[in-house]
């Protein structure tokens, strides 16, 4: 593996919660422009690893680098501003705000009180509106811009979350179980959408519990089990890997 073009690099990350080692010595890389899947059975440590990357939880040991810069210990908002956009496993939209305002929050970034009150705020406001409009168009929610987010259907809320993450113009987009709760048609639409984003050059890390979406769109799949990375290969290779099958189905000799 080359180390020069890695957009995201995890070096020997470990996170312990008391006696439980949720993430155990995981090293991984995500190259610029890649669409990587991260899968694993329930309790494998996917969400913990996700929280380590996005700055929600600091690692016990190990390092995280984004674009070659060390971001270990950075707070979530700092990680976000550096260019890591994310969605949430259990939808986290702002229900009492309009769809448009929801998306615009992703584009705000720095909050300078002085700017908001003076003429400088106008230029900021305009660029925030432009990005928000663009992203709403992109996910196909432009017609709902003025609607309260709480009134959207589940599938549309999922797309709203993605639009909000995209509004921050991320270099790396981490999607946390985007297909959960979607029906087959919606999942197929989502797969097409994710591939389109990748076509535009966005690097995507897709965290999924369910294999089907990951196998369909990812170029490389990492598998976590009991906090450890047990596989890191092409979808086809991962699917026939005995260690992965053991993790998902259990071994006969236990």
């Amino acid at each position, binding site marked *: 593996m080359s180390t020069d073009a890695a957009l995201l690099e995890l070096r020997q990350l470990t996170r312990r919660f008391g006696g439980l080692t949720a993430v155990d010595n995981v090293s991984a890389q995500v190259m610029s422009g890649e669409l990587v899947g991260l899968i694993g059975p329930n309790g494998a440590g996917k*969400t*913990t690893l*996700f*929280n380590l990357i*996005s700055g*929600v*939880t600091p690692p016990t040991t190990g390092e995280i680098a984004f674009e070659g810069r060390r971001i270990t210990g950075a*707070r*979530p*908002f700092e990680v*976000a*501003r550096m260019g890591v956009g*994310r969605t*949430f*496993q*259990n939808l*986290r939209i*702002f*229900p*009492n*705000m309009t769809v448009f*305002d929801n998306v*615009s*929050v*992703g*584009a*705000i*970034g*720095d*909050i300078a*009180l002085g700017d*908001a*009150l003076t003429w400088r*705020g106008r230029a*900021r*406001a305009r660029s*925030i509106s432009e990005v928000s409009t663009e992203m709403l168009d992109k996910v196909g929610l432009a017609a709902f811009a003025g609607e309260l987010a709480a009134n959207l259907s589940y599938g549309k809320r999922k797309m709203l979350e993605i639009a*909000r*993450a995209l509004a*921050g113009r991320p270099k790396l987009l981490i999607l946390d179980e985007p297909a959960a709760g979607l029906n087959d048609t919606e999942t197929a639409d989502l797969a097409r959408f994710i591939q389109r984003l990748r076509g535009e050059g966005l690097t995507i890390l897709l965290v999924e519990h369910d294999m089907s979406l990951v196998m369909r769109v990812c170029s490389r799949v990492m598998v976590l089990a009991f906090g450890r990375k047990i596989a890191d290969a092409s979808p086809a290779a991962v699917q026939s890997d005995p260690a992965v099958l053991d993790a998902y189905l259990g071994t006969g000799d236990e």
Partner: protein
Amino acid sequence: MSARLNLVLVLALGALLAGLVALGSSYFHQIAITTMIFVILSASLNLITGSAGLLSLGHAAFFGVGAYAAALLSTRLGWPFWLTLPAAGAAAAAVGALVAVPTMRLTSIYFAVATLGIGEMIYVTMLNWVGFTRGPMGIRSIPGLELWGFKGIAFALVVTAGVMLAVLWLVHRLVHSYYGNAMRALREDDACADAMGIDVGRLKLQAFSVACALAGVAGALFAHTTGYISPESFKFGESILVLSMIVVGGLGSVYGSVIGAVILSVLPELLRELGSWRMIAVGAVLFLSILFLPRGLVGEVSAIELIRRQLRRRDRGDGGARRVAW
């Protein structure tokens, strides 16, 4: 709401003011001034509680800090009101920021309890630091609003109205900008706002300081227009009264702040004949509004929902949501 509606409202208010000045009943003038001071208080509280979702139970204390700053600066140092007003705002903002730094790490209901405690601390300080604040005796003979020979209650009315409009403009500007969206995101889901790139700690500190500064300015107006202040005016009950105003008017809405403040300031005056029973009427208005108008008259979030969310926030399952905001 549209710009035309804004214009109509400002004109209506101007006409009302002109009418009051022309009619010249000092009783009405005093009620109008008190109402406008409460409009400033409710608009500033609505900024942090309604828009940013930080339930503050100590707003009256910052009102008091401003009032005492203005009273002391004008009686002891002879500062004119156009200096004491900004100074009172700065003093309240400074105290607010000082208080904010340790409490900002608290989320939800813990923050509310902290502001309650701090409000009481400030009140007790006013009451017991007799050498500085004259304690329960209060401060007397605070000079009225006076500039270029204009003075008297009609002038005070005009100045108060001017300051109130400036405050409303400022709050309106903040709430309807991207800054307002950042605050609403904080109210809706602080951990998520954090993950979207918003410096939640800094935003809380800023919003809280601004709200305290505006409450301080209201305090200065109060000190100069009544001429006498004592700690009694800045007790917990006053904080709750202001909170009731924004709940009745509508959380997160500038119009709601104005309407709520007007209703709950004027109603007790209209019901003066009922004697002490009139406070029950005030309570009934709050109760009925929560029951039948959960979002207040024009609010964007319901009071019950806000409180419920504060209590629930800790139990939610996603990673850092259970932890402090930064």
